[in-house]
């Protein structure tokens, strides 16, 4: 399998503070990788850096996407190449309706919107994007948007956090559908990098590989369920 995403010795800072201190990580084509790590280890920062958000400044290292160096590219260039992201706390977009955003950013927007009720989002299409949404509503809205966007590589930042138990099945199943979507003629799945704190999402998706991140570096890689068991029993060993 070729590499979908390859990160090489990536250093990055938020403001004056260095958060990523030499990250090396690879996600192969069609692979789902999990990123574990204690709070403040730099997981969300890594995702924001891969997406290209300007709050983070890369000081050295490289981000390669399908072999192409995207380290200096703008957010929309990365999105156009096929990277999509579910943010944990996306900003409010006042005056822009969720349905209109999806229609204007996706060729298959209309088709996906017909299925909005399966995301329990049909009543939210005329609402302003993220304004007054609960934790679970934000996740469903992000999943609906990503389903319309059809990225080839998806960054999911804690898809199960802040979600009521009764809705976790819906989020889990929709996340699985998103990741199981087959790209192109060869039928391979989309690739993804998923941050999870509780590991709950692993009840719904099959992850191929897990990384552990501590203090801005990847410190281990291995089997997701084994890592999860170890973390549940012994924490991150700090």
């Amino acid at each position, binding site marked *: 399998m070729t590499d979908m995403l390859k990160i090489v010795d990536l250093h990055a800072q938020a403001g004056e503070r260095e958060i990523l201190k030499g990250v090396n990580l690879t996600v192969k084509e069609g692979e789902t990788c999990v990123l574990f790590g204690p709070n403040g280890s730099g997981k969300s920062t890594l995702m924001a850096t891969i997406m290209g958000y300007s709050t983070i400044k890369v000081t050295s290292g490289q981000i390669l996407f399908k072999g192409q160096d995207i380290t200096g590219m*703008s957010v*929309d260039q990365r999105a156009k190449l096929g990277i999509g992201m579910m943010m944990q706390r996306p900003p409010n977009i006042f005056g822009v309706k969720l349905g209109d955003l999806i229609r204007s950013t996706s060729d298959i927007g209309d088709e996906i919107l017909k299925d909005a009720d399966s995301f329990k989002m049909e009543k939210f299409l005329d609402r302003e994007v993220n304004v007054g949404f609960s934790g679970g509503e934000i996740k469903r809205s992000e999943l609906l948007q990503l389903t319309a966007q059809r990225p080839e590589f998806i960054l999911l930042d804690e898809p199960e956090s802040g979600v009521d138990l009764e809705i976790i099945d819906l989020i889990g199943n929709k996340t699985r559908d998103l990741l199981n979507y087959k790209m192109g003629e060869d039928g391979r799945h989309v690739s993804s990098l998923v941050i999870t704190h509780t590991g709950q999402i692993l009840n719904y998706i099959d992850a191929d590989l897990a990384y552990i991140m501590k203090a801005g570096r990847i410190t281990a890689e291995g089997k997701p369920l084994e890592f999860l068991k170890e973390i549940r029993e012994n924490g991150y060993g700090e």
Partner: protein
Amino acid sequence: MVDEKTIKGALDKKGAYGADLDLDSYEQGTRTPDKVDDMESSDYRRYMENVGVVADEINRAGTLMFIDNGMSHCSTSVQEGLEMSSLSDALKRHPDLKDYFWKAMDPTKDKYTAKSYLEDADGYFIRVKSGYTIKNPVQTCMLLNRDKSIQNVHNIIIVEDNASLEMITGCSTAHHANDSLHIGVSEIYVGDNSNLTFSMIHSWGKMTGVRPRTNCVVGKNSNYTNNYVIMNPVGSLQSFPVATLGEGSSATYNTVCIAHEGSDIDTGGMVNLNGYGSKAEIMSRSISMGGRMCARGRLVGNSPGVKAHLECRSIILKDGGSTLAVPELEAHVADVEMTHEAAVGKIARDQIEYLMSRGLDEDQAVSMIVRGFLSGSINGLPEALQKELDSAIEKANLGD
């Protein structure tokens, strides 16, 4: 009544806000303009349609058009309860109308009101009789058609008790009449248990001076809504409508503006909450695209049980412009609840990048946020106005 000498003295009185315009640098506009019988085939149609006035008059209760200082058109499909004419004609029919003249507006307020008073300016008269609800909006159009001249009009609107009216008033300048001045005095009277929605859409020339003077007196348990939209370049515009509320009544002001390069816009409004339990909300959304933008709001609580909120939000999209928010709250009794919020600045980067992560480029993302900011964040606009606002935003040059 103030004597004529004092009013003449007020011809030198600068407006409280906005640049001081020299009235002597303009000529007088004509009182006998072209008559427009058929709006649809009229040459003026394009100017009207720019400001929400529909030529086919479908879904409109009536249409009144002024070109410069005289009436050009007046038609209505409503048989009962609605009276529309020029003010001068109305006064001939009802001499007692004189009691409404200069009661809501002090002619010595500034040079513009004084000029209107002293020239006995004509304008439109619209009255909804007690007990009538006019289903469709009445539309009025004020067109400035002569360069270097003053359009000077005086309007009176009366919505009697238990009555309801929606008005869309479009004001525009013909291309050749760019360097001219619009003075529009509107005195509005809303009775008890009544509703009036008064929506103004403006489209002027790059040099046009605009000085509307709108005061409204509202009785008991009534609602008055004042909407103001300007998306196109203008020279100097200053407007500060004042509403005075009786017991249990409410006023809502919504203002949506773009200050383009070279435009100087000073707008907002004031509500005197005089009646027990009266309510007011002043909302403003403005953008500076290189022009000067000032958004004012003043709420005065004079009675117990008053509730009022003021919100000014402004975005600066281009350097070289400026924006100023002036929210003022004043209370004269203890039992009032009055609040304000004001925010001025650029569009948050995280919002732009969030939309970019969905595949929009930066300009498209900014444009979507700006359109949303202008069109979507004010609730409860009448349907016809929302449509006009959306179309004005669509046509406005937002840099994309």
